[in-house]
C-alpha cells in the first residue's frame, strides 16, 4: 500500500466520520460545529485532489459562511424561544436506513462504473485547455466561469441576489437577534480588527488580482471579504441598520450589472452576445462581483437590509 493511498483513505475516513457526526449526532449545535469541521476537511481534500480554487471556496463559503449563517440562525431561534429551539422528534426508521444504504450503493455503482469507462476524446475540459491560450488567461477555472460559461455565472449571481431579497422579505424587523460583542468592551477586540482587517482585505484583493492566472477569483475573494465583514459585525465596528442606503443597494446589484454589461457590450460592437473582450473586462466584472458577493453574504449574516458604522 503506497503512502498516497494511506493518506487518501485517512482523509476519506475523517470526512465520513465528520459527516456521520453531522447527520446522526444528538445535539443540533454540535452538528453545526461538526459541519464547519466537515467543510474544512473537504477543503483539504480539494487541495489533495489538485483543485485549489475549490479548496479556497469551500474553506471560505462551505465551512466559514454557511457555518456562521447556521449558528446565527440557531441563536435567533434560542432568542425567540430557548425551550423549543432544539425540539425535535427524531425517531429511528429501519426503512430510512435501507433507503440510505441503497442510495449510497447506487452512488458508488454509478461512480465506479463511470471510472471504468474509457477516456472519451473531445471532452469539454480538453476544448477549454486548447482554446485557453487565445484568451490569454492562465487559470482554466476562471476561463470557464467568465468566458466559456459566462451565462452560468450571470445566473449564479442572480440566484445570490434573489436569495438575499427572499431572506429580506421573510425576515421581520422587530426583535431580531443581532450577533455582536460590542457590549462587552473586550480590550483585545480593536487590536484584533486592526490586525485582521487589513490582512483580509489584502489577501482578498490579491486573490482577485491573480485570479486570472492562478487559483483565486471573484468568489474566493468575495467570500473572504465577507468573512472579514462578519468579523466587523461581531466586533461592533459595523452594525446592522434597518434603513436601506443607496450605496449598499448599488453594491448588491453591482455584480449582476457588471455581468450584464459583459453580455451586452459585444452586441453594441457588432459581435455576438458575451463575446470575449479581453482581460481588462474580466477584471472589471470580477471586481464588482467580489464587492457584491462580500456585501450580500455579510448582509445575510446581519439579517438587516443595510449596514452602518459602529462607535469607534
Amino acid at each position: 500500500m503506497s503512502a498516497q493511498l494511506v493518506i487518501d483513505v485517512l482523509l476519506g475516513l475523517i470526512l465520513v466520520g465528520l459527516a456521520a457526526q453531522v447527520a446522526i449526532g444528538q445535539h443540533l449545535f454540535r452538528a453545526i460545529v461538526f459541519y464547519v469541521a466537515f467543510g474544512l476537511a473537504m477543503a483539504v481534500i480539494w487541495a489533495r485532489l489538485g483543485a485549489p480554487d475549490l479548496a479556497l471556496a469551500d474553506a471560505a463559503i462551505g465551512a466559514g459562511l454557511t457555518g456562521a449563517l447556521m449558528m446565527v440562525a440557531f441563536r435567533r431561534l434560542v432568542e425567540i424561544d430557548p425551550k423549543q429551539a432544539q425540539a425535535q422528534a427524531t425517531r429511528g426508521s429501519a426503512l430510512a436506513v435501507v433507503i440510505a444504504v441503497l442510495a449510497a450503493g447506487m452512488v458508488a455503482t454509478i461512480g465506479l462504473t463511470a471510472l471504468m469507462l474509457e477516456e472519451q476524446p473531445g471532452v469539454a475540459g480538453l476544448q477549454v485547455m486548447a482554446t485557453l491560450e487565445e484568451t490569454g488567461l492562465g487559470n482554466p477555472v476562471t476561463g470557464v466561469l467568465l468566458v466559456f460559461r459566462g451565462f452560468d455565472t450571470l445566473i449564479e449571481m442572480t440566484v445570490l441576489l434573489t436569495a438575499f431579497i427572499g431572506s429580506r422579505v421573510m425576515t421581520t424587523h422587530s426583535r431580531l437577534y443581532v450577533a455582536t460583542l460590542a457590549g462587552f468592551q473586550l480590550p483585545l477586540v480593536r487590536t484584533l480588527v486592526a490586525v485582521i482587517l487589513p490582512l483580509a482585505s489584502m489577501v482578498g484583493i490579491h486573490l482577485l488580482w491573480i485570479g486570472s492566472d492562478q487559483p483565486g477569483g471573484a468568489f474566493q475573494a468575495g467570500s473572504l471579504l465577507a468573512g472579514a465583514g462578519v468579523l466587523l459585525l461581531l466586533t461592533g465596528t459595523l452594525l446592522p441598520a434597518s434603513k436601506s442606503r443607496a450605496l449598499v443597494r448599488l453594491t448588491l446589484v453591482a455584480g449582476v450589472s457588471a455581468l450584464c454589461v459583459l453580455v451586452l457590450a459585444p452586441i453594441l460592437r457588432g459581435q455576438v452576445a458575451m463575446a470575449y473582450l479581453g482581460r481588462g473586462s474580466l477584471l472589471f466584472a470580477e471586481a464588482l462581483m467580489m464587492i457584491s458577493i462580500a456585501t450580500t453574504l455579510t448582509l445575510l449574516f446581519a439579517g438587516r437590509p443595510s449596514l452602518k458604522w459602529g462607535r469607534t
Partner: protein
Amino acid sequence: MTSAVFVLVAAAIFGLGLHGLLVSTHIMRKLLALNLMLSALFLLLIVVPATIDGRPDPVPQALVLTGIVIAVSTTAFALALMVRLFRKQGHASIHPDIDPRLLRTRISSKAKNHASGDDR
C-alpha cells in the same frame, strides 16, 4: 486508486446525508443533511472525470464552484424561512404527524434534555 477511494467516500456521505434528511424533523438538521448530500455530489463530480495535465477537469471545477455559491444562497434563504416558521408555529420542525410540543409532554426526560439543550 485515489478516484475509487473518493467515490466510495462520496457514496458514504450521500447515504449519511439522505438518512439524516429522512429521519430528522428539525429543519436545520434537514438543511445540514442536504448540504452533506451536496458535498458528496460535488466530490463525485470532481473525482469521476478524467484529469487533464494531472489536474481535475476545469469544467466540472467551475460547475462545482457555482454549486457552492448556489448552496450557500439557498441555505441562507431556507434559514430565513425557518426563523419565520419558528416565530409562527413555535417550533422548527416539519413533519406531517408529529408536533414536538405535544411529544415533549409525553415522553422521557431524554427529549426534555434535548429541548432545554445546550445553549451554552
